[in-house]
């Protein structure tokens, strides 16, 4: 590790924390329907949308209607995106003449983008038309993110309201999330990205002369190269702002047209962590005690910082096998040092590690380096970040409502220890809430461990593995962890584009998204109906460092207890074997 590397990580954290309050306060105003400056510009558009869709914005829904609306919207998204992928060959804006996407891949991709996962079993530049990238991918990048934010806001309303049935209007929350939060932020980011060299065009791919002509496998001279292009900047912006992560290109943020400079790299990491972090402040603001939000953010940031440093340490330590071969892996002014396999030289070890941590801590899943090539401990750390059920920042909206479920579990344990039946923000946590929270906690072992178990003993599962042994196991575990948590990053090294992985992966993504969202909304409905118990000295304080520590402990212990055996057979044993030979 170098001082420079640590400063870069610290700088990122400082900028992020500085942005939390302003954006968080702004979002609270958006969701509470308070006046904001953008009203004047976008207000008429918002009202037009409601009129066009026959939405009565003042009509609020109970949790069941809210859930059904959310589900209906998501299913509509899956079906329409599937259709688009299948018929893109017949539609305009297709300069490269891309054909129909095969059914299983189209299904996986449709599910992937509507669940805010953005797992990609395809290469964008060789599969999708410009129209699909814009109307399909980019649109879903917006609305899937907005769906997560809407669910969160409904959840918060459940905590805030008492003796109430309604938890908001899904269509309003969805529309306002897109119009007032995601669109402006993406617009700003896209503009900045373009200045740094991210491409934005509707034209065809370009052929350019190679600076250094080379010979192909047949001995033919190659002097020309085809550069894939398209409406990249607009998609990349929302891909990070909305913690989506589905790249325009297969190489994702490692591609120079998506992420050309160290500055864009920093902006992308910031963009993907910005809304999840700021939403904690929005939460605090809406529940009337910003310390509640800061406490949760503190818990998240502590874990994030520890894992960022751990990953960076693991990657800069390099590979002991190469040391044995006399390879110099020490960092210097001209050499970032450490394990540079699969990393871009323009980013180096520190930034790649930070990016990997940011993208797995949030459910973004964009990559600027190949996770498969990380050291076992580096890979372990980003794998675990996802296995914390995407609660360390997590996806926009979904990360925080996932974390709030863990808060409920922590409150339940701690509440008992102070001699009261547990309550959170004045709401009693009873059997119904525990039932729903338990369902959510059960999600991880069922889909991630369950599907991994199926894959490692079936031919269809094992045949996709590129690296046999413990690393192959890690690859499969990573694939289901990523999809089951709606992250979407890939360890690579595993051929995911097979019927088996397309279907089981889609299953994992669907279950991962809705098995969390539906019980969370059910809890919101139940909490909203309860009365609020005023806090006193006998109530468990949930806005203290102690509680933040307890929350971290619950998240870590639940994750560790669920995954320790699997991790022991994957990255942990890989690491031990690498060192011992």
């Amino acid at each position, binding site marked *: 590790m170098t001082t420079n590397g640590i400063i870069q990580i610290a700088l990122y954290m400082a900028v992020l924390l500085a942005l939390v309050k302003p954006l968080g306060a702004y979002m609270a105003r958006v969701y509470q329907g308070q006046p904001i400056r953008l009203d004047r510009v976008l207000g008429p558009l918002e009202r037009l949308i409601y009129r066009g869709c026959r939405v009565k914005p003042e009509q609020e829904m109970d949790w069941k209607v809210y859930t059904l609306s959310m589900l209906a919207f998501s299913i509509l998204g899956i079906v329409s995106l599937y259709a688009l992928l299948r018929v893109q060959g017949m539609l305009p804006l297709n300069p490269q003449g891309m054909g129909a996407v095969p059914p299983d891949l189209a299904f996986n991709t449709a599910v992937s983008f509507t669940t805010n996962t953005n797992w990609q079993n395809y290469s964008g530049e060789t599969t999708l038309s410009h129209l699909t990238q814009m109307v399909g991918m980019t649109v879903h990048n917006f609305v899937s993110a907005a769906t997560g934010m809407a669910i969160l806001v409904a959840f918060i309303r459940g905590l805030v309201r*008492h003796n109430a049935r309604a938890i908001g209007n899904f269509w309003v929350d969805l529309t306002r999330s897109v119009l007032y939060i995601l669109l402006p932020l993406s617009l700003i980011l896209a503009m900045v990205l373009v200045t740094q060299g991210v491409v934005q065009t509707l034209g065809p791919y370009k052929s350019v002369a190679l600076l250094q002509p080379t010979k192909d496998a047949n001995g033919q001279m190659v002097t020309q190269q085809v550069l894939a292009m398209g409406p990249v900047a607009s998609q990349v912006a929302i891909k990070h702002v909305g913690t989506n992560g589905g790249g325009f290109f297969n190489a994702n943020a490692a591609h120079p047209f998506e992420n050309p400079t160290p500055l864009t790299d920093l902006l992308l990491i910031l963009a993907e962590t910005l809304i999840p972090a700021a939403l904690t402040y929005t939460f605090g603001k809406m529940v009337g005690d910003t310390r509640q939000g800061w406490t949760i953010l503190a818990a998240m940031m502590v874990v994030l910082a520890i894992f960022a440093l751990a990953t960076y340490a693991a990657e800069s330590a390099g590979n002991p096998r190469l040391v044995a071969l006399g390879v110099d892996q020490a960092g210097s002014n001209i050499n970032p040092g450490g394990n540079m396999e699969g990393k871009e030289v323009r980013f180096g070890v520190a930034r790649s590690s930070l990016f990997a941590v940011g993208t797995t801590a949030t459910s973004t899943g964009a990559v600027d380096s190949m996770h498969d090539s990380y050291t076992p401990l580096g890979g372990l750390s980003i794998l675990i970040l996802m296995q914390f059920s995407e609660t360390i920042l997590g996806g926009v909206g979904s990360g925080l409502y996932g974390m709030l479920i863990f808060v409920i*579990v922590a409150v*339940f*344990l*701690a*509440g*008992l*220890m*102070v*001699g*009261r*039946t*547990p309550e959170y923000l*004045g709401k009693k946590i009873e*059997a119904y*809430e*525990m039932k729903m*929270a*338990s*369902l959510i*906690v*059960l999600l*991880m*072992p069922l889909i991630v*461990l369950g599907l*991994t*178990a*199926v894959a*490692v*003993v079936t031919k269809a599962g094992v045949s996709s593995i590129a690296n*046999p*042994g*413990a690393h*192959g*196991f890690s690859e499969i575990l990573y694939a289901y962890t990523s999809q089951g948590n709606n992250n979407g990053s890939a360890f690579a090294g595993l051929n995911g584009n097979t019927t088996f992985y397309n279907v089981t992966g889609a299953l994992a993504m669907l279950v991962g998204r809705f098995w969390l969202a539906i019980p969370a909304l059910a809890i919101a409905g139940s909490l909203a109906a309860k*009365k*609020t*118990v*005023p806090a*006193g*000295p*006998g*109530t*468990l304080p949930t806005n203290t460092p*102690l509680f933040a520590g*307890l929350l971290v*402990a619950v998240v870590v*212990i639940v994750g560790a*207890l*669920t995954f*320790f*055996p*699997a991790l*022991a*057979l994957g990255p*942990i*044993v890989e690491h*031990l*074997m690498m060192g*011992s030979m």
Partner: protein
Amino acid sequence: MTTKARPLFDAAILKRAILDAMVKLDPRYMVRNPVMFMVEVGAALTLYLFVAALLGKGEAPAGFTLAISLWLWFTVLFANFAEAMAEGRGKAQAETLRKTRRDVNARQLSAPRRDAKSQMVPASQLRKGHVILVEAGEFIPGDGEVIEGVASVDESAITGESAPVIRESGGDRSAVTGGTRVLSDWLIVRITADPGESFLDRMISMVEGAKRQKTPNEIALSILLAALTIIFLMVCVTLLPFSIYSANASGLGRPVSVTVLVALLVCLAPTTIGGLLSAIGIAGMDRLIQANVIAMSGRAVEAAGDVDVLLLDKTGTITLGNRQATEFIPAGNVAVEALADAAQLASLADETPEGRSIVILAKEKHGLRGRDVRALGATFVPFTAQTRMSGVNLDHREIRKGAAEAIQCYVRAKGGEFPESVQRQVQEISRQGGTPLVVADGAKVLGVIRLKDIVKGGIKERFAELRTMGIRTVMVTGDNPLTAAAIAAEAGVDDFLAEATPEAKLELIRKYQAGGRLVAMTGDGTNDAPALAQADVAVAMNTGTQAAKEAGNMVDLDSSPTKLIQIVEIGKQLLMTRGALTTFSISNDIAKYFAVIPAAFAATYPALGALNIMRLATPASAILSAVIFNALIIIALIPLALRGVRYRAVPAAQLLRRNILIYGLGGLIVPFIGIKIIDLLLVAMHLT
């Protein structure tokens, strides 16, 4: 009464508990507790695997499988034992109670008159509404309401209090309990409970835990524990395919055996809390019984931990039952001695506590000895509701003491004056929370006696303690607001309700509840019944009326007004014990992973031996040690489960820090040490 606390491990209870632990192995019973049921299934499965191993079809060495199986059976037995121990303590009490429920004959009357025709019927045939006659020396055959007569009744069978109590028709002392004995006189009683529903029956079933239903929080916790168990079930089930893949990949060793997976599952599942959960609940009820309180449901005990407002009656709870004279304040031209003398004379024959306190004050402050009224030839004029005065006629003096207005009328009628200075004193005393008594000799007003409510010693500290626990105390009194405010300030309560009527009390409870607070109160009179029914935790005095007892959800056999505070602590203790053991149970798992995982994959991935940080001797000893620790910790924690985690009156944050440190961090560290020690012992005894 205070029953002597039974020792934690009573030999008779112990013996019976061991037997009960075996009986409880019945799967139909076990299935009620999913965590322990799963352990029992595991025990049976490993037993089957052992038999298979003996027949040569084993997947693991027979001896190892047997050892695991045995310890799994022990785990189940230990948990059952804990529950049986907790129940045993209640059963012992129930046994004593049952002895009092003898099948006596009752004299049933055809009409509610003493001279009505009567016939003898067995008590078991008495129904609600029947009227019976009970004479001196007879047992009261069932719960009822006295409709005629006054008698002294020995209620020691129920309350343990040996002094007899008076039961009479009308008023707040009309309830009688079956199983108690009339000592003198006779009572005509209308039966109010059918057989099997009497207070005694309910008490027996409560202490036995026979009708025990899971309380709401217990249900919520059970759900969490079941979820954890399913998680670990998934972890262990998927570990088999994982190990098949790994064994193939490394080309070493064989997939992990089912025996090891079962052992791992039992170690990980929250067996510590799962095994002790019902014992904790029963023990909580038992602690309440030890405090001489009978709760009508477990739900009420749980709610007691959540109470945030206590409504306390002023008299008897906050102040001593009666007022005492503390000062003589003479009128302008009267010597204080003259006032004291007159006051004492007026009070000599007054047997009320107030009267006696005046005599004592005169003696202590002014050296006036008590005199014999009769020797002085005085005639006592008792207090009546009409005159609102009492006093003596002596020689030609007519000394009177009474409320200011009453004396004013009296003096004016005699042509005297009521001095302005006395009037001011009267108001001043009222304002300070005292009760003024004015003394007059004929037409002349001598001065004022200050009577004061005496706040119980130590009660202020108690309220301060409650405040740190987050509980508001509200004093309820019939006094006027001025007096009430002064006493409230002196006792340090947070709020008070003056000139309280039953309706005002009910209204106050509703108001607090609307604000989301849980309210507890005690009451005894029939007019308390609506408020008792409304309160979340309602403690009825055993001396109270039947209506009050039925409206409340607890009955305090001691009829002690301060019992409420103790009940709240017992409720909190119950919840804390659950939380502490759950945390402990989950924290334990970390160490167990470090014991079992390297052992389970020692052959497949020898490199995983690095995780064996406890340096356990062999894979078999490691797994066995973890299983043994898991079983023994249940036994080790039985005393804690029965006694409960100690509650301290400190703010929640402090309590949390302390308990996380002890049960969270402790739970993390203890098993590392425990498993290592067991491993060393196994090696020392050459058992591996």
